[in-house]
């Protein structure tokens, strides 16, 4: 009998070739598992948590009662985290509506760097299998993706592009990328300028790709280079490669773009893609899907018609990345309760003085400051079935549990919570 493969929920690649078995210390992930997957499965395997009320172990009913009491008393609750699967999100949204909550994903600030560009200019994009089979020129921005998407190179960039003709695949590394992540024999052009200069670099490439008269000398100076370091020649060569590509792909991960107004740099690159597509094919691949960011946004978007961050206050739904962003709402002291739901990851829960916090979290999570209520929930793909959107946005995969656990799902927990609330009055 062939091994039953597991699908890894811990990054946007959703690799479905893992073999996960019970080991002496937790779950043992093998098969295609990367280091990150091994660590995550192992950590989850070891934990056997119980609900907690203000740090003290409590029965499920007691913890649910307390959580329901806090929720019932809240007038301005916020729902955060959302590092969750589709099922959890489907349960969270009716609750958010019922509570009039403001709701935001923990990574939406990074996510918004791409959404911004879609909403304010549009985008040409592609998906993993197109990259794998077609891409003859791959431009990689930044290097965070090598950590966040550990098997991206192995799975998408190492296999030969069968539809690309005989030329093989060439790489351009924008910003200080990790050359060693790529195959050693890969033809590779490095434009190693600091990440903060990406807006200038992106604008320069977009202008050059459009055939506009940009002074390479001035560009090099603006990028902090010098006449002798060959940057001007590499810029020119890069543009040649972009224009010669039969099917080029530009890869970035919005979470890497940790500088203010990074969405503008993405927009410059989006413009470059538009220009290149007048003559050849060149598509973007905004790598995402970590921590359920795409999933949470997609479910919110299809149910409400508007993405995150959103407010369900006053019986309406409103999208405003500025006013409804959770960090801002918390910092301004506007929320009187924080419900944090995260069944996939273990990002820290914000602690705000005087704001009661309920956490529906992974079994192995720990806290610097104990929340008022902690309700451990099953992790989809480990203890429970679930669905997640993959990092290229189009594919949703089923997460089959690798063990039969006793933890309730986040969705079930939310429904239990909702059942304890007073009937909605509106």
């Amino acid at each position, binding site marked *: 009998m062939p091994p039953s493969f597991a699908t890894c929920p811990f990054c946007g690649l959703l690799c479905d070739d893992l073999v996960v078995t019970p080991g002496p210390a937790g779950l043992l992930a093998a098969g295609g598992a990367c280091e990150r997957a091994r660590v995550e499965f192992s950590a989850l395997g070891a934990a056997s948590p119980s609900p907690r009320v203000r740090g003290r172990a409590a029965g499920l009913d007691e913890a649910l009662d307390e959580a329901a009491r806090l929720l019932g008393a809240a*007038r*301005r609750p916020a729902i955060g985290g959302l590092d969750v699967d589709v099922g959890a999100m489907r349960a969270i949204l009716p609750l958010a509506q019922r509570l*009039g909550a*403001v709701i935001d994903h923990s990574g939406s600030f990074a996510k918004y760097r791409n*959404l*911004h560009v879609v*909403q*304010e*200019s549009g985008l040409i994009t592609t998906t993993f299998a197109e990259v794998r089979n077609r891409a003859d020129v791959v431009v990689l921005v930044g290097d965070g993706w090598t950590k966040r998407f550990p098997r991206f190179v192995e799975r998408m960039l190492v296999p030969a592009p069968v539809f690309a003709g005989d030329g093989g695949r060439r790489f351009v590394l924008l910003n200080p990328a990790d050359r060693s992540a790529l195959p050693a024999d890969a033809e590779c052009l490095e434009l190693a300028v600091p990440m903060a200069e990406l*807006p*200038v670099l*992106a*604008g*320069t490439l*977009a*202008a050059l790709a*459009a055939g*506009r*008269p*940009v*002074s390479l000398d*001035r*560009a090099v*100076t*603006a*990028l902090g280079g010098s006449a002798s370091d060959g940057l001007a020649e590499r810029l020119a060569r890069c543009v040649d490669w972009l224009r010669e590509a039969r099917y080029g792909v530009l890869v970035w991960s919005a979470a890497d773009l940790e500088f*203010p*107004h990074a969405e*503008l740099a993405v*927009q*410059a690159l989006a*413009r*470059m893609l538009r220009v290149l597509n007048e003559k050849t094919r060149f598509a973007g691949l905004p790598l995402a899907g970590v921590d359920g960011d795409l999933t949470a946004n997609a479910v919110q978007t299809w149910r409400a018609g508007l993405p995150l961050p959103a*407010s369900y*206050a*006053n019986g309406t739904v409103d*999208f*405003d*990345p*500025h*006013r409804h962003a959770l960090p801002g709402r918390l910092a*301004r002291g*506007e*929320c*009187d309760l924080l419900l944090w739901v995260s069944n996939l990851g273990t990002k820290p829960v914000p602690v705000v003085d005087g704001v009661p916090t309920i956490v529906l979290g992974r079994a192995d999570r720990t806290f610097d400051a104990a929340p008022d209520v902690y309700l451990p929930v099953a992790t989809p793909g480990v203890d429970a079935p679930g669905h997640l959107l993959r990092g290229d946005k189009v594919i949703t995969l089923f997460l089959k549990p690798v063990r039969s656990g006793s933890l309730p799902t986040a969705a079930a927990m939310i429904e239990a919570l909702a059942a304890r609330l007073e009937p909605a009055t509106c």
Partner: protein
Amino acid sequence: MSGLRLSLRARPPARVDGSALLPEKLQGQTLDAIRRIALPGWNEFHEVGELFEVSGEATDRLQIDQLDGSFDRLGALATAGTLVLRGQAGDLVGEGLRGASIEIEGAAGDYLGCGMRRGRIEVRGNAGHFAGSGRAGELQGMSGGTLLVRGDVGDRAADRMRRGLLLVEGDAGDYLASRMLAGTVVLLGRAAGNAGYLMRRGTVVLDQRPAQMLPTFNANGRQDLLAIQLLLRSLGGEGPRFSRLAARAGGFERWLGDLAASGQGELLVSF
């Protein structure tokens, strides 16, 4: 001073949408009726009378005093009358303005005058980020009217601006006039980084040399253009600092860009 006067006396627990407080809507109502108007907060509605001392007479002039930044969208979509705001106005003041005059005798929050189409907003103090821009997710920013900030503006002022006039006496943050589509910005202070990023058309007059000039703007030499003279002359009424700019002779150093976009914008720098 004539008109209606609201003076904040209680801070709401969360931001309140103040867009119902328009002179054109309140005009002619009794003070009691005005006190009963409910403003939407977060899951609760606050009566004007609970939050404000209400006095005077509801004419086409409304003054709101003691603002503390917790009211958003004041003057949004106003078409007529005068709204005077004192203290710290919140975000989205004058959003989508269609004709009224808003005077802020204090400072404004973010998204001041975003999407405004007509009318005039004048701020004595500073304005936050995205002044004269557009609502998040939409293609166009401010598309008409005059937005005058005597103090500084934050980042991304005039982002996606399509028409109209943004005048700033102080400094501007990063990405002034980013993605500008058309319209006019005049900045007397200094622009921080990346002014004009991805601007497609439009005019930005800078009375001081910006921190840096993007390599995707090309020098067009010194140009003394009639259109710019005409433009600056038209600002004579906006104060002596603008008159002085209009009176200076010899044109400007002109830069064209952003070549990463369609490249037909102009940055005009005093020399």
